[in-house]
């Protein structure tokens, strides 16, 4: 068998450590051991490392896709030295079983969990988790981010086609991991209004819940079970599970039903740190109130406080911190200055009121749809000489050098809003004068017709005329979501693009395509592009992340009547990577990392 031959070759070759020259390196995590590209212990049968599943043919198959054990340096090195010492030459040698058992005895340790709680929503939990993941990665630990329950409109598709919150994919990169997965964010809530959310479980749609049903039915039932299972799974694979809480852990009205904060921390047996944003003032009150409202038996799990986002001198805050330690009996392990970093936008309250961002020359107007989603698509534009204006009134489109219709949680309803508000007319009137791009739902709107005969997208069956900018028809024919990562090229220039699709409606496109997407099953074309009228449409979220399309699209904009002058655009991922490093530097400098690790290990 092919795999056995590969393992045999690996056994002969000897220990090689990281194969940085390999085209796929690192396929799991930075610094991984590649001695065994294929595991010599397969199928190990250890339920902590994999599980038995049924194949399409109905056979029992050992599945261990997410196992990292053999790629740990000490494991790869030990396995190889044992194989050499015992003179094992065939992967079928029964003595491999013994090698596996002693490797497990020596090196397998369930990981430890650390919970990062925030006193408020925008306390800085996400960046703290990202910084801690990077710091642990720098120290050679295998760490993973985890947020049991995230409420976010910004999601991203993992390599395996699961939909999780955008921020966990960033934290995963911070931990040096190559493949974010659904275990990192098993429950994702996508708000559909003030009180109803679509609940996604393990990266796939699960159902719509109102606040009461969510806390009354989902949380005590499937929610708690899912959190327990995913935590156990992650602890079996990583040295540290760096957990992020949601909102405040001291919402005493729902305390017993909260599986995002102390509930998850208890399941994981996590040491907890509390992050407080100092920027708005009242941080000492928030810290004391949060700790003291948590029931006494849980309170003792909180073992450190981080005062975050201090602008100006930290001296005043440090003076207060000493007093805070005395009052709470919990050490302040970090006083972190404000760091200007470039990370994907969060669904902060700030976004609701945001009218523009950036101060660049090119004025890019984004139609601020009432149900706007995936607005992290726009983030790379902030690196350019661009001002992004979020326009809620069609009059605001005046003076735009380019227009973007972004993604939406509900295309049909937002299209109706486009008509009522006068946007439909205003955007159509500007076609041919400035470049117009529709992304996902925005792209669907630019077509000629939208049909939802079963009421899958909307609440009831409906049919609507689109803006008619593209010769395209979109139909929601079955309750099925297309969730996939895409990689390909911009047809006009042949330069690389990447992104991900998350949508339910499917489109029949008759205009020339924008991209060629590479797939295992063969290449496909994607999007629409009409050069003469400067019309662009695509299903790809993250379409601006790679520089090629960003540069191409902006080249059609003419700020002040002339071409947009700008430096060669950067890859968005590089900018994120650099930001994570700067963030981690700031935390390493201003936080007691050893104390943090002791808290995670439960040693304090």
């Amino acid at each position, binding site marked *: 068998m092919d795999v056995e031959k590969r393992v045999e070759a690996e056994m002969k070759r000897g220990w090689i450590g990281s194969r940085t020259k390999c085209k796929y390196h690192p396929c799991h995590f930075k610094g991984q051991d590649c001695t065994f590209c294929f595991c010599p212990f397969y199928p190990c049968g250890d339920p902590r490392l994999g599980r038995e599943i049924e194949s399409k043919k109905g056979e029992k198959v050992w599945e261990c896709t997410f196992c990292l054990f053999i790629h740990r340096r000490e494991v790869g090195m030990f396995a190889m030295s044992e194989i050499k010492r015992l003179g094992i030459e065939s992967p079928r040698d029964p003595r491999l079983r013994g090698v596996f058992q002693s490797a497990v005895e020596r090196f397998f340790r369930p990981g430890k969990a650390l919970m990062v709680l925030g006193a408020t*929503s*925008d306390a800085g939990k996400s960046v703290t988790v990202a910084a801690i993941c990077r710091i642990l990665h720098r120290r050679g630990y295998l760490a993973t981010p985890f947020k049991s329950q995230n409420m976010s409109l910004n999601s991203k598709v993992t390599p395996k086609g699961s939909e999780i919150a955008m921020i966990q994919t960033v934290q995963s990169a911070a931990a040096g991991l190559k493949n974010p997965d659904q275990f990192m964010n098993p429950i994702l809530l996508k708000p559909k209004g003030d009180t109803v959310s679509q609940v996604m479980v393990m990266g796939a749609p699960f159902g719509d819940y109102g606040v009461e049903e969510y806390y009354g039915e989902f949380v005590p039932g499937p929610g708690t079970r899912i959190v327990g299972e995913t935590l156990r799974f992650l602890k079996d694979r990583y040295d540290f599970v760096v957990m992020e809480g949601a909102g405040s852990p001291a*919402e*005493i*009205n729902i305390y017993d039903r909260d599986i995002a904060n102390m509930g998850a921390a208890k399941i994981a047996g996590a040491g907890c740190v509390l992050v407080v944003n100092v*920027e708005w003032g009242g*941080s*000492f009150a928030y810290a004391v*109130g949060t700790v003291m409202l948590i029931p006494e038996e849980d309170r003792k799990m909180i073992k450190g406080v981080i005062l975050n986002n201090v602008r100006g001198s930290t001296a005043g805050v440090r003076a207060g911190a000493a007093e805070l330690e005395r009052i709470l009996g919990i050490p302040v392990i970090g006083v972190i200055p404000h760091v200007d970093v470039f990370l994907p936008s969060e669904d902060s309250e700030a976004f609701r009121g945001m009218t523009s961002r950036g101060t660049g020359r090119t004025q890019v107007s984004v139609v601020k749809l009432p149900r706007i989603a995936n607005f992290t698509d726009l983030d790379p534009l902030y690196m350019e000489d661009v001002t992004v204006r979020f326009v809620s009134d069609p009059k605001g489109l005046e003076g735009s050098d380019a227009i973007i219709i972004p993604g939406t949680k509900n295309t049909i309803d937002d299209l109706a809003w486009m008509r009522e508000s006068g946007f439909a007319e205003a955007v159509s009137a500007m076609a041919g004068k400035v470049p117009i791009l529709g992304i996902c739902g925005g792209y669907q709107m630019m077509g000629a017709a939208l049909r939802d005969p079963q009421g899958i997208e909307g609440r009831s069956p409906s049919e609507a005329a689109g803006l008619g900018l593209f010769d395209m028809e979109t139909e929601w024919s079955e309750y099925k979501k297309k969730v996939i990562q895409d990689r390909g090229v911009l047809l006009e220039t042949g330069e690389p693009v990447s992104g991900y699709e998350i949508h339910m409606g499917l489109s029949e496109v008759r205009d020339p395509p924008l991209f060629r997407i590479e797939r295992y099953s063969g290449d496909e074309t994607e999007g629409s592009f009409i050069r003469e009228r400067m019309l662009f449409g695509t299903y790809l979220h993250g379409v601006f992340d790679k520089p090629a399309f960003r540069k191409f699209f902006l080249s059609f904009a003419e700020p002040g009547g002339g071409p947009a002058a700008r430096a060669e655009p950067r890859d968005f991922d590089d900018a994120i990577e650099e930001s994570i490093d700067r963030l981690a530097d700031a935390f390493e400098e201003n936080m007691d990392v050893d104390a943090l690790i002791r808290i995670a290990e439960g040693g304090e």
Partner: protein
Amino acid sequence: MSILFLGTASGAGKTTVAAMYCRHLYRKGARVAPFKALNLSLNSFVTPEGKEIGMGQAFQAWASGIEPSGDMNPALLKPSGNGKIQLVLGGAPAGETSRDSPMDFRRVMGEACAAFDRLSAGHAVVCEGSGSPVELNLMHRDVANLGMMRERSVPAVLVGDIERGGAFAALYGTWLLTPDDLKPLLKGFIINRFRGDAKILEGGIRRIEELTGMRFLGVLPYARLKFPEEDSLSDSGGDLRGSSAMEAFIGNIDALLEMAESSGLDFAGLDEISGY
């Protein structure tokens, strides 16, 4: 007759709530005046008598149906960059302060009390606090919050912002950190900027009442108002002087007041606290 609205953090909504309460008393026929002992703000207003005060107090004065005056904001700190802050006392420039040369706390407190006394001689005084009252490193020389409670026994109401979450913690923590001798002056609390069905908050609200003895005065729904925010953090609503802006603001405050009344804000409770 006075009342002090304290925020659990900057931007909790004290300025708006105070303006709304001014309006409520004005509509009831009271002679009412706004007051903020010490204001940190970049947005200032020059009164007809030529005194410089915080913009927020000017708006609150209009909501009270009177012209702004210097006594409404006896001390104003205007950040001028480079860590320097200009001090305006009694409406006139009074030098600069910085980390190395902090303001003379006793002098500012004295000015504040004198202004408060002058105002309260003829008005119900609706006071607004500044920032959080319990910044552990600053509270020993607090003027606008604990300062006024200590010097003039002004009864206080906490305004907690629930938009970012953690409102119960903020309210409880603020109460816990308030010095014991002043705790009896913390009479009640308001939860501001709530979205959704307030029923879900009930358990938490009861618990805060039990723990602190403060009275729950109501939940205010989320509202985006055109209003000059007080603190130096938020971008200013611009220069709204001139009659049309003022009218627009008054219209907003009236609308907010009606919204507060219909969402069940306990005005009778507030009146009991303020003594009006």
